[in-house]
């Protein structure tokens, strides 16, 4: 009975690790899509109403969910009360605090965008947003591809590793 319980626990634990890896792939896609939705909204609003950034960040926060919403919300709060800080530092802090599940490529793209926003005329910022969206789209496609390709592999590996351990140990 104890052996059976142990075998079950090993398999379940190992499978959970596999599913966690799958979950990370899904979270990355979700966060990239959330950030893209916010940036796309900002691009449209900049092209039309030329709203100030605190307002744009607030709208992006309302239009998104989860960590991307938290990220835009932190930017909105920070820019509404600058208190001597620069947008670049607020943007960087928000990226840290919101803990977006992004890879280096997406993170680098956002960090670069943070150096442009708020410093130039509307059209230049809109172009920077469009460029960032283009890059993010590439990242999203890659993330989706990885989720599709590696998702099943990780799940299967988790279960298989559990079963292997059971056979090996018992």
């Amino acid at each position, binding site marked *: 009975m104890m052996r059976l319980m142990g075998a079950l626990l090993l398999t379940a634990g190992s499978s959970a690790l596999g599913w966690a890896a799958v979950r990370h792939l899904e979270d990355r896609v979700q966060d990239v899509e959330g950030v893209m939705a916010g940036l796309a909204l900002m691009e449209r609003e*900049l092209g039309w109403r*030329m*709203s*100030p*950034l*605190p307002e744009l960040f607030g709208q992006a926060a309302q239009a998104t969910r989860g960590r991307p919403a938290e990220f835009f919300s932190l930017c909105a709060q920070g*820019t*509404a009360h*600058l*208190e*001597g800080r*620069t*947008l670049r530092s*607020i943007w960087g802090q928000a990226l840290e605090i919101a803990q977006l599940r992004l890879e280096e490529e997406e993170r680098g793209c956002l960090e670069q965008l943070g150096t442009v*926003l*708020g*410093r*130039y*005329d*509307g059209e230049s*910022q809109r172009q920077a947003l469009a460029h960032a969206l283009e890059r993010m789209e590439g990242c999203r496609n890659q993330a989706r591809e990885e989720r599709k390709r590696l998702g099943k592999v990780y799940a299967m590996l988790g279960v298989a590793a559990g079963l292997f351990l059971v056979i090996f140990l018992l």
Partner: protein
Amino acid sequence: MERKTAVCEAAQVLPQELYRAVCALSSAQLEQGEELRLRRGRPPALVAAGREWDTDCRGVVEEDLLQVVEQASQASAHTVVDQLRQGFVTLRGGHRIGLCGTMARRQGEGTTLRHLGSIAIRVACPVEGVAEGVVGQLWSGTCIHSTLLLAPPGAGKTTLLRDLVRTLSEGGGGRRPLRVGLADERGEVAAMWQGAPQFSVGCHTDVMDGCSKAEGLSMLLRGMNPQVLAVDEITHPSDAAALEEAAGCGVALLATAHGSGREDLERRPVYRRLLEGGVFRRLVTLRCQEGVRRYQVEGLA
């Protein structure tokens, strides 16, 4: 608002170190503060009682000046590009930042400032009640006359116009409030900040800013059904044409003009046309004598 509080409020756009240095000046200096001056390589200074008082602080660097613009625009430079092109940015509270430096040009037109050299922050401290002695003379029964305010620069035309707008808009003294449309091209009368006037211009006043006076007057006339239209500094023939159009629609007008007297006005084509057309019925001439402002109201036939 006390002037000391206004100075510290205006100084909030400065980097923290400079802000602390300004607020560390003596109360007597802050109470008379009119402007803050930032020049590269020099410590920030407060203009008060006719002279500049340096703060006990390091010299200003260009990064400080850029940060002031970032703070003033709430990290949204695109919202103040037009103002930057004109060389000033309006802050919450009606304070105004004047910018100076090297202009970047594209196709012959100034686009923005490539390098900032200095910044002047004019501390706003609006004066209410200056129109009290004038407003009664602009009425005839239940009718308000179209009025031109005339004075040399710095004599207080804009202050008088703002207070007239407020007084007419709020009514009182047995007079009904009037709907006032204010075409505030340079934002000097109402000092709009994110859609809200920073100076008191009355509860029945609609302000159009960010566009030319002629455009603003025309839009107000078409869209807001004003009883009075107010505009600061008529200088261009298109402004005069817009005023003539409005006068033809039965709207009372309030406008200001640079000039030393009626004769001076009649010499200049833009104003001569308005006077000959009977657009204005009252002329208020402002004079500053020994630090005291005096107003003279006369009828225009």
